């Protein structure tokens, strides 16, 4: 029997992780629809690598294998890695990244619940710095040649052939167009001429984003995540992009473009909301996620990397303990220094 108050239902890590994975399925379905089944191969590769690395580290650390292997946390990390990497990246890139995430970013810091940085984003940052070229080979929308994609993943295809099946992501296309030396391109012109742009975001990517959005809303309804982080992240990105595109719409892309390209929606509901490495107090969550949104926009607009979410999340991870300390809510029945009651 539980003691009062009775409204807290004990949830296991396993059920949380399983529902997070279920919530990813609409986005993955859209991914397969627009970009082919290669992503499923990457998901499988990352899952196997994550479970193997997890088992190895657990046995090295003398922890119970089945309890921690079946909690699903390694699988969620693996899926996030697969979904943030190009789906036609070589197999060793995904495997290497997943092993690095589990071994270095998770277990060397003390395992689940102890890691100060989001493991999937550590893996992404490591690989984008080490192999920027491989990390920018994104599949073209509408390319469904599964055999060719398999050849790209398992390395039996030449570089030229891989080039033929890739496409710049909308963010990349925009950056290249805006930063090219002579041509005075505007955002509207760049997006119109690029084959990568869709109706309101990136071609294909916009619907993958919608899939993540639906899954994310279901997670909020299930009370796996609270509304604070996604709302603050989306609001920060929306307001910043909106303000700047109002001031100069020729040089800054609008809010819809930012929200439905790259990893924005995946980030808002599945990456920023990592319960371990982020802030935990309600006000802290708002500050943390808004910071990620702000940094994402800054890195996307002024930086050299294809997407800013990984670096933004890692930078804000560093500040999470400080944010938590500064936003400690008063205990029930007491007042804090400023005289607030909960």
């Amino acid at each position, binding site marked *: 029997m539980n003691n009062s108050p009775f409204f807290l239902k004990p949830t296991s890590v396993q059920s949380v992780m399983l529902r997070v994975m279920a919530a990813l399925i609409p986005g993955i379905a859209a991914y397969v629809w627009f970009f082919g089944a290669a992503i499923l191969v990457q998901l499988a590769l990352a899952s196997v690598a994550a479970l193997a690395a997890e088992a190895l580290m657990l046995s090295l650390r003398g922890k119970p294998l089945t309890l921690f292997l079946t909690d699903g946390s390694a699988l969620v990390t693996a899926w996030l890695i697969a979904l943030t990497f190009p789906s036609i990246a070589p197999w060793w890139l995904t495997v290497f990244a997943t092993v690095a995430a589990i071994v*270095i970013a998770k277990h*060397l810091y003390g395992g689940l619940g102890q890691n100060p940085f989001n493991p999937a984003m550590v893996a992404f940052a490591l690989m984008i*710095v*080490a*192999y920027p070229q491989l990390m920018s080979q994104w599949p073209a929308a509408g390319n469904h040649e599964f055999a060719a994609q398999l050849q790209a993943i398992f390395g039996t295809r030449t570089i030229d052939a891989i080039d033929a099946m890739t496409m710049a992501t909308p963010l990349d296309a925009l950056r290249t167009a805006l930063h090219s030396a002579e041509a005075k391109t505007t955002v509207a012109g760049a997006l119109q001429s690029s084959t990568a742009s869709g109706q309101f975001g990136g071609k294909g990517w916009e619907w993958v984003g919608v899939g993540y959005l639906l899954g994310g809303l279901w997670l909020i309804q299930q009370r796996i995540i609270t509304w604070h982080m996604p709302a603050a992240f989306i609001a920060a990105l929306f307001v910043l992009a909106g303000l700047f595109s109002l001031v100069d719409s020729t040089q800054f892309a609008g809010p819809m473009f930012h929200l439905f390209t790259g990893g924005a929606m995946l980030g808002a509901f599945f990456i920023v909301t990592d319960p371990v490495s982020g802030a935990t107090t309600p006000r802290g969550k708002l500050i943390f996620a808004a910071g990620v949104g702000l940094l994402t926009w800054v890195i996307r607009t002024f930086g050299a990397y294809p997407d800013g979410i990984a670096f933004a999340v890692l930078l804000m991870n560093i500040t999470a303990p400080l944010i938590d300390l500064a936003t400690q809510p008063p205990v029930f029945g007491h007042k804090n220094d400023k005289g607030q009651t909960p």
Partner: protein
Amino acid sequence: MSQIREITWNGVWKQNTGLIQLLGLCPLLAMSNSVVNGIGLGLATVLVMALSNLFVSALRSLIPYEVRIPIFILIIASLVTIVDLAMNAWLHSLYVVLGIFIPLIVTNCIVLARVEAFAAKNPVMASTVDGTAMALGLTWVLGLLGAIRELIGTGSLFAGIEMVIPSAQAIVILPEDYPGFLIAILPPGAFFVLGLLIAARNWFDARANQRARSQRIHVAQSAQQSAAT
């Protein structure tokens, strides 16, 4: 003689500056991106530390206690200037690569630490050995760190050896199509590899301690048994 051996062992292994005292980490992390850079900076530090310990130890009865730190720094700075000019003259290309980290040996806290903690209180011979051994301890860690980072990062070893020995060449260890791993050469790689080296050394020590303890228990037990019989 046994004292000399103990000082050497202290410097090279037991109180290793890179793995145990964790002093002078800035040049250790910054200049260990290849074997040649690491050993180059390490040997320059050996020269400075041996000479600074020697001079301070020889002058220790003349240095007023109250102003000893500025005087130590002056001695160290003069020696570093000599090493700096000498490397500029005879190993110019290596000097260009190591850049600011040669003059920065002055501020390397391990140099001042050994001068203050050892040379100011011990005779000339022991002090010189201590400075040399401490710096050699730093040098082998620099070299090992450089080797691991270079191998993982580019797949070869001894890149830039032609700066020191004109006829020598870098050795390619891993196959030509090794894609390299840039992170290992960049600063994050230095932190990761150094962390792993420290962990390895702690593991090694823990295992040695455990073995020694079980051996002692074994000896004690057999002594008890023989006493009982």
